[in-house]
Every structure is written in structure tokens, then in C-alpha cells.
């Protein structure tokens, strides 16, 4: 639906949208100005107006003065911004971005991510962006739609998606997560290995097999663990250094060989003496554990 009009059955040319592809799809034999003006020239608009519009758009995407250049003279990120300008030139009611950043290197990708988001807010055009990069989706979107094999899995804000995944697929797909096999033992109580864990807000029939999903950061380590639920004790099997933080793999004897991945900031690593072979006790937050039927 677009402005109350069902456009599913219309040919592409009769829908009102602009599109940006992963491959940029800039016309190689036309200059930047001709590329941006491509959709305008066809509409019997005075040449001066077209020129003014091109100038305005190039300024908008941060590449003023690049009119006479050819696409092959620009870097990937610059080409993608020209493609964006071309898509916006006709002031479409809807902007489609089809993996616009996948072809760029990591640094350029992060930079352009912010730029596209800023531009989209400034222009105020409804934008649908397709991406395989979960981080990209979480950082740029107002609303995220997670799809799996053509089926819709969950629609929600990035925080909803991350903190309250609606299905095991979403939980697995977005961000890192621990999965523990367990059996329900009572209301909000589950037995995994020889450990009984509490999780809020779910009820499964006692004896049914479930899986517990827990993010590596959803644990309590600081201060006294006195009175905390879900206390586990184990030995650190290995530490993976990730820059700003570390991922430690904890071997808990009571979990019967199921490893537990836990995030620590670098400061915590120092303060809590996180290293291979060290013993560690922590508490898993019952309000954070998601339970799905196995």
C-alpha cells in the first residue's frame, strides 16, 4: 500500500519509488550530473531547473562540484552517494535501499551508515533498507523487520528485536546469544544439566523440553552475589579479545559441558582478573532469559 493505493500488482514504472542497489548501477557512460538528472530530463522540466536540482542534490549527499566526473573516477562510497542522489532526484514517496553498503569496505560502510541515516531524517522520506548486516539494521532503523526464508519472523524497534526476540531464529540471528537445553520443572523454573535456573514471564508445562536463550552481557558479576538468583560457578576455558571488550567462555560443571559465553569490558577483565583457567562466579539475570520450546 502506498498512499492508500495497493501497488503490488502495478508494473514497476507506475509505482512511486526510488531505488539504490548494492552495485550502485550508475550509468558508466554518463557524467555524475547526467546520472542524477536521468529521471528529471524525461519530465519536460526546464534545463535550468534540472541543473539547480542536481546541484542541490549533490550538495545534499556531500559531493558538490562533482557534476562533470564519470562514475569510474569516484570511490565506491562516493558512487553510492551519487546513486542515492539519483534516486532522490524525482522526490519519490518511498526509497528502497537494496543492501546499499554491502559492496563497501568496513570503515566506509560505518561512515556511510550514519550519513544515509542523517540524510533520510533530513529528507523525511519513508525508506526501506534491505540488509544482511544485523548491526547495520539495529543502528539505522526505526523499525526492523526480520525475515527468514521469505517468512516474516518479527517486526519491532531495534531494542525490541534485540531484547525480546519473538522466535529462536531472531534470537540467534541478531547478536550473540547462549543457548542452553533445559527441561521445565515448575512455573518459571528450568533444569539445565544439574542446575536449576529461574526465568521470568514464561510458563511451560513441567517436563517439557525447552531452550533457554541468554545474551552474553545479561549477567551480574560486580559486588556481592548474595541473594541473586541463578548463581553459577565455573572455570574460564578461553578468552577472546574483541577490542573494547572480551568474550570469555565459561565451563560450568553443572551444565554438563554446555559452554557459557560471557561479555566483559576491558575494565572488568582487569578488575575481576579474567584469564584462562581462572575460577569465576556470576549470576544470570532471570528477567533476561528467554525461553522457547525445543
Amino acid at each position: 500500500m502506498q498512499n492508500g493505493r495497493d501497488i503490488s500488482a502495478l508494473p514497476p514504472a507506475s509505482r512511486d519509488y526510488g531505488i539504490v542497489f548494492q552495485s550502485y548501477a550508475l550509468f558508466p557512460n554518463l557524467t555524475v550530473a547526467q546520472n542524477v538528472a536521468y529521471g528529471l530530463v524525461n519530465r519536460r522540466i526546464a534545463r535550468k531547473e534540472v541543473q539547480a536540482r542536481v546541484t542541490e542534490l549533490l550538495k545534499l549527499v556531500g559531493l558538490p562540484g562533482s557534476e562533470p566526473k564519470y562514475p569510474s573516477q569516484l570511490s565506491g562510497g562516493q558512487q553510492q552517494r551519487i546513486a542515492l542522489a539519483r534516486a532522490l532526484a524525482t522526490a519519490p514517496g518511498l526509497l528502497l535501499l537494496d543492501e546499499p553498503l554491502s559492496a563497501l569496505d568496513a570503515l566506509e560502510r560505518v561512515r556511510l551508515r550514519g550519513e544515509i541515516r542523517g540524510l533520510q531524517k533530513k529528507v523525511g522520506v519513508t525508506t526501506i533498507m534491505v540488509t544482511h548486516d544485523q548491526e547495520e539494521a539495529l543502528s539505522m532503523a526505526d523499525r526492523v523487520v526480520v525475515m527468514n526464508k521469505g517468512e516474516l519472523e518479527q517486526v519491532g524497534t531495534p531494542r525490541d528485536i534485540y531484547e525480546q526476540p519473538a522466535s529462536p531464529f531472531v534470537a540467534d540471528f541478531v547478536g550473540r546469544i547462549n543457548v542452553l537445553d533445559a527441561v521445565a520443572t515448575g512455573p518459571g523454573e528450568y533444569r539445565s544439566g544439574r542446575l536449576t535456573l529461574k526465568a521470568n514471564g514464561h510458563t511451560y508445562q513441567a517436563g517439557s523440553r525447552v531452550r533457554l536463550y541468554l545474551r552474553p552481557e545479561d549477567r551480574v558479576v560486580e559486588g556481592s552475589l548474595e541473594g541473586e538468583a541463578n548463581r553459577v560457578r565455573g572455570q574460564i576455558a578461553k578468552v577472546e579479545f574483541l577490542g573494547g571488550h572480551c568474550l570469555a567462555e565459561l565451563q560450568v560443571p553443572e551444565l554438563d559441558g554446555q559452554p557459557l559465553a560471557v561479555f566483559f569490558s576491558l575494565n572488568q577483565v582487569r578488575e575481576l582478573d579474567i584469564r584462562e583457567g581462572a575460577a569465576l562466579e556470576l549470576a544470570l539475570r532471570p528477567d533476561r532469559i528467554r525461553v522457547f520450546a525445543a
Partner: protein
Amino acid sequence: MSAVLPAPVAPARFYVADVLVKLLLLLAGLGLAVFLLAPMASIFERAVLDNQGNFVGLHHFATYFATPALARSVWNSVWVSLAVSAVTVPAAFLFAYGLTRSCMPFKGTLRLIALIPLLAPSLLPAIAFIQWFGNQGAARWLIQSLGIGSVYGAPGIILSEVFNCFPHALMILIAALALADGRLYEAADALGTRRLRRFFTITLPGCKYGLLSAFTVVFTYTISDFGAPKVIGGNFNVLAVDVFKQVIGQHNFSIGAVVGLLLLVPSIAAFAIDWVVRRRLTANLTTRSVPYAPKPRALFDKLMLAYCALVCLMLLAVLGMAVYTSLIQLWPYNLTFTLKHYRYALIDGDYAPAFWNSLTLGAWTAVIGTVFVFCTAYLLEKTRGLGPLRPVLRLLALLSMAVPGLVLGLGYIMFFNHPQNPLNFLYQTMAILAISTVVHYYTSGHLTAVTALKSLDDEYEAVSASLKVPFYKTFWRVTVPVCLPAILEIARYYFVVSISTLSCVVFLYAPNTILAAVAIMNMDEAGDIGPAAALGTLTVLASAIVCFLYALIAGILLSRSQRWRFNVEKP
């Protein structure tokens, strides 16, 4: 920002564009159906009908095989084609190996010379070989010392067809050898593999499909070629000449149709093999492959150079003899220089219009053929709609290669000469010559166009649709300029093949539309070997000039488009 320009409303003509695509596709399909399928169907029909139009089943086939002289042609054609393949493919492989895997000098020149036979009508080498090895040949002792009594017959056909087929096989094998993945050779070297083992475990398996493809191309070219056996075949009967004799000599269209169908068998088989091979070939290639770069090896490079130079020398000797024959009074009695054969061929003789007709035909096919081939390929590759028709069109485009020119020409007379055919008016015009040539050589141009179009981003069309620019504008502003080198290449190809083609047009020309290759055949038959050689030389010259012009224009275009075609600077 949206205040700057109001969003314009999509005009209704975008539906029109969709309809236009479908209409054009239908038109292309109709064209191929009428000018390729229908003539073929007429041959099938004619083979099972008698002269009164009654169904006689396989009667004509039975008659054909009951005639010993005719049935022997089947065997003759097969073994001669096998012999030509057995000589050409290894010879071309060694030449291609030298060009791609050695560091010998003069690679460009050697390659250019080796491709020269492509420019000559298939009759020309036969004429040259008669001059070299015929009854009064300059080097008759050479073949006699080899125990061959006379060049007329199988030896002459084999020699001529090896000359004709060499560049075809060479191009396929160069492409196959150039695909080598350098990483495999590095791995073999790292494992201490010896050269010979490397050759048999990496090189040969790597180009086995190319070898197979070269073999089928040479085999089908030889079995369906008509020019060389007509000139040098003597009393040695082959299928292609049988078709001609039955149809032109005896007006026996039914037996002609039977022989035509027999000729179709190896072509269709070759087509099927090629179809499978092509699929394997694409699966074989990965984008990660690293091109193989040969390292200098003094002895090997010298040996390769010696071999390639020898081959080029032999090819030039054949062409040179034709040129020489055209410039002297009469071999071997009067060797003084003269231009009278050229005057006869171009001005005085009965066939004076032939050369100009051929040039006209070349221009026509270059224009019509290129436009039709490229537009159809574009519609097939870059538009949507009419899904079921597309695979059929693709198949037809490839199938044209599988129909020998002689068979296609036969189909054309049977189909268009039919008094009830509304297209009967085409018969005996330049138009039918142009159309038959375009259809006969369709596949190569089609593949060139498809390759060029596939290298373009598929999303141009989607972007244009979103910007509400109709497809034909994008076609004109982007697709055509970017594909211009390929378009010129198709036009050059069409020109060159149409001025030397014989088999496709030999049934279709009228006295006022006689073509150079036909005139060469007729003059040779009348004993006017000088003018025949002169006309042959002229067609080679015209083709060479067109190729040179093509190279020149392509070079200029490329340097002009340099600004956008290449990455000038990357900030």
C-alpha cells in the same frame, strides 16, 4: 526538500512500453520462425512427398541409399571430415599452445596471419592447391613423392578444408588454453611435478572441452562445406556437392531434401555436444582464477616459434598462390604480369556485377543483421514479459549455427519459391540473400551481443523503471553506447562472412544478384582460373580493409570513451 519539485505523476505510457517490449519480442520470434523454422519444415515436408505432393513416406530415402554412387558419398563425407579434424585440431592446438604458453616473439603477427583464412571464400584455397599440386602444379612432385597420384579428390579437399578450418579451431583452442588457472601450475610446481605430467594432468584436462568443441566445429564445417569439394573434388562425391547436383543439375528436389536432412544429422549432433560443453565450460571457471603467465624457456620458445612460423608460411603460400595466379597471364605457359584478370572479373566479364553485389550484400547484412541481432539479444537479456517465448527464441538463436548453409538455402527455395507463399515476392531479390545470410550466421553475432549485454549491470533497467524513464531511452542513452565495441564487432563479422559466403546463397541468387563466391565457382568451372583467383583476392582484400577500418574505429571509440570506461583516478 520535497518542496523544490513536485513529484510528477507517472504517465500512462509506461504500460505502452511494456506492450512494446512484448510486441517487439513477438516480432523477433516471428522473424526467426519464418526465416529459419519454416524453411527447415519445408525440407522435412519435401523429403516425404513426391512431385505431385502425395505422401510417400521414406521412399526417397530408400531410393537414395539404393543408389550406390550416392550412398558412397555418405562414407566419403564422413571419413574426409574425420581426416580434416584429425589434422586440424592437433595442428591448431600446438599453434594455440605456442601463443598462450610460450614466450616466443611475434605472437601478435603470427596470430593475425593464422586468422587470414577467415577472410577467404572456401573455394580460394582449393584453387590455390590446384595451382600448387594440380596436374600442372608448381610443386606436383611434392605430393607425388608422398605417393599421392592426384590432388583432385580427397587429398585436395582435405588440404583445402584444413586451411579453411584452421583459424576456427585456433580461436576455440586459444580461448580454452587462455582459461588456465595459474594457481594450479604453482601448486604443481610446489609439489615438484614434472613438465610432461603437468601437461597431462592439468593442461589437457583443462581444455578438453575446448578440444571437443574444436573437433565438432571442424567436422561440421568440413562435412557441410560445398566450395572446396566443388572445385577440387573431381569425381570424389561428397554429400554437400550431391545436394547441389541433385537440385541444380537434375532438379530433383526430393532427393536434395533427403541429402539435406542427412547433412543435418552431424550438425545437430555437434550442436548437442556443444550445448553440453558450453554448460560445463562456464561451471569450470571461477572469478578467483589467476591467469597463467608463461616463463621464458629458450629451447621451447624457439621450437614453438619455428613451428608457428612454418604454419604461417604454409598458410601464406596458399593465399600467395591465389594472388599470384590472379596477377599472371596463364600458368604455366605465360608468367608475365597482368591486370587483365581483374579487369575481366570487375568490368568486362559476364560476372562483372558480382563483386559489387557482394559488397552491397555485406553492407546490407552488416546493418540489418547487427540491428536485428543486437535488439533481439537486448530484449531477451534485459526485459521482462512473455516468459514462455524466451527460451524458444534463445534456442532458435543458437540453432541457426546447426543448420548448414546449403540446407538453409535449400529450405529457402522450397519455402519462398512456393507460389502460394505470400512472401514469394522476396524470391530472387537481394533481400532474400541478405536475410538468409543474417539467419545463417545468427549464432555468432548473438553470442557476442549476449556476452556484452551480460557484462552490463542488470539493475540499469530497474533503476530506469524507478525513475520512470522508458526502457528504449535507457537502451539508446546507455546500453548502445556502452556496447558499441560489441555492436561494431558484430557488423564487421557480418560483412566479412557475407562477402565470402557461398553455400547459403548458391541456390538463391538471380542473374542480377550474382555474388562473388558464386562467380568464382562459375568462372573456375569455365576454366577461367585467373579471373576466379582475382575475384577471390579482391574479396580477401575487401574483408581485410573492413577489418582494418573496424580496428581503427574501435580504437578511436575506445580512446574517446576512455574517460568513463577506465578508472582514470581513484581518490
